[in-house]
């Protein structure tokens, strides 16, 4: 049996390689935000379950965006929910504004973890799968659900004693579609993305 070849570290910057912020990164951030707006809006409208969308594929866009485009994906993570929540009628402006830090962390955790532990975005090894699943999906959604349910509680949109149940519903409900969609996108599209100039090896370039 042939020994599987160890894939090269996609995050490594080659000697002499210059990583600079270009218009391409800016455009990809806007594109990811646009995709997030569409996916988030249609996701919320397709399976409307109030504020706790049991089907919000937007987290997959957030996680994958930060893996491929670093902080540019992080920017998209908190900008697109502002627009998609307004368009879908799932959350008003003040609530969406308070969601911003939660959305940013929920999106960036995957990008940070994949870089920190040197994981391949094409999910080639067991480590890549474990890091993306545990940190990028389970932990990220746990943080997002905790932040989101606290926000709803602050705005009196849920009763205080229902917060643990809302948190659990939010967390489990978002984790499943995020994992399915995130894995599909990383497996199928990462090989293309990492060859483009706009792929971000560090955090901004």
């Amino acid at each position, binding site marked *: 049996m042939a020994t599987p070849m160890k894939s090269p570290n996609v995050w490594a910057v080659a000697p002499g390689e210059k990583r600079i912020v270009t218009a391409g990164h800016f*455009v990809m951030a806007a594109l990811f935000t646009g*995709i997030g*707006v*569409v996916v988030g809006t249609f996701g919320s409208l397709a*399976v409307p379950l109030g*504020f706790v969308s049991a089907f919000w594929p937007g987290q997959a866009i957030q996680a994958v965006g930060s893996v491929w485009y670093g902080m540019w994906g992080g920017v998209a993570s908190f*900008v697109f929910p502002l627009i998609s929540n307004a368009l879908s009628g799932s959350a008003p402006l003040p609530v969406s504004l308070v969601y911003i830090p939660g959305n940013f962390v929920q999106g960036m955790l995957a990008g940070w973890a994949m870089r920190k532990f040197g994981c391949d975005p094409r999910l080639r090894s067991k480590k890549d799968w474990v890091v993306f699943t545990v940190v990028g999906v389970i932990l990220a959604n746990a943080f997002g659900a905790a932040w989101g349910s606290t926000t709803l509680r602050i705005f009196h949109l849920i009763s205080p004693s229902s917060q643990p149940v809302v948190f659990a519903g939010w967390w489990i409900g978002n984790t499943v*579609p995020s994992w399915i*969609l995130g894995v*599909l996108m990383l497996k199928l599209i990462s090989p293309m993305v990492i060859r483009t100039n706009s792929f971000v090896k560090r955090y901004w370039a």
Partner: protein
Amino acid sequence: MNKTVIAYVPESSPVYRFHPATRLVFFVVMGFVPLFISRPLVNGLVVLGFVGLFWVSRVNLLQLRMYVPMLVTVGLFIFLTYVFFPGKMAHPVLLARIGPIPLWQHPLSLALAAYVRILALLAASLYYFYTNRERDILVAFRKFRVPFLVTYFIGLTLRVAGMFIEDFHVIREAQLARGLDVTSMGFFRRIQLYAMYMVPMLAIALRRGDEITNALFAKGFSLRPGQRTDYLLSKMPWRASDTLVTVGLVAAGGLVAWLGLSTHSL
């Protein structure tokens, strides 16, 4: 007809008599004012006021039907959390009992207040996106001297979102033409369907990203700030009536906030 972010609105709509920046101020003020109102009746009047505004602005009210499931489930969600998890009450008053489930007065009144408040807040968002075009949003931000890079990002995002909605419809119609019935699908089948949308949409996005980047490069676009002319802004003049309305809106919003926070009379 003007193609707004969500709908089509006649060009003769009275809403276009106001500068886009005035409309943005209205959105921001009305997007926060209901938070300071605790009486459901007052927020209910705000909602009715928005229904009237939709009608006066000649927005086809039938277009709002798509939001009915969302608004109903938002209400159900709020009421269910307060019914099943009412928490501790100082003086519990039982209103009724549905089987084994007691309906307490205080949690239900809190739920009603929260629901009507959220309806008023959502009405502000929907009204803004129903009556404003992408260019209106950009002009409004530029009028308030928001940096060009930020407004360009917002503009590109809204434009790209519009393009992706078209792509999404193309993929969806292709699926419908092949006999796919989305309405009869279960929850997990819908998730699978979304996965099928994502991959082609992202592939299109990558190609489009390259095209836009090349176009920007060809036009000498720079991320660095600099002097720029603004054609759109010059086409939409700011009038005295805009100043009057903006000042009035901010003052009224401030007054409601003050009354709500200090006297709890609203």
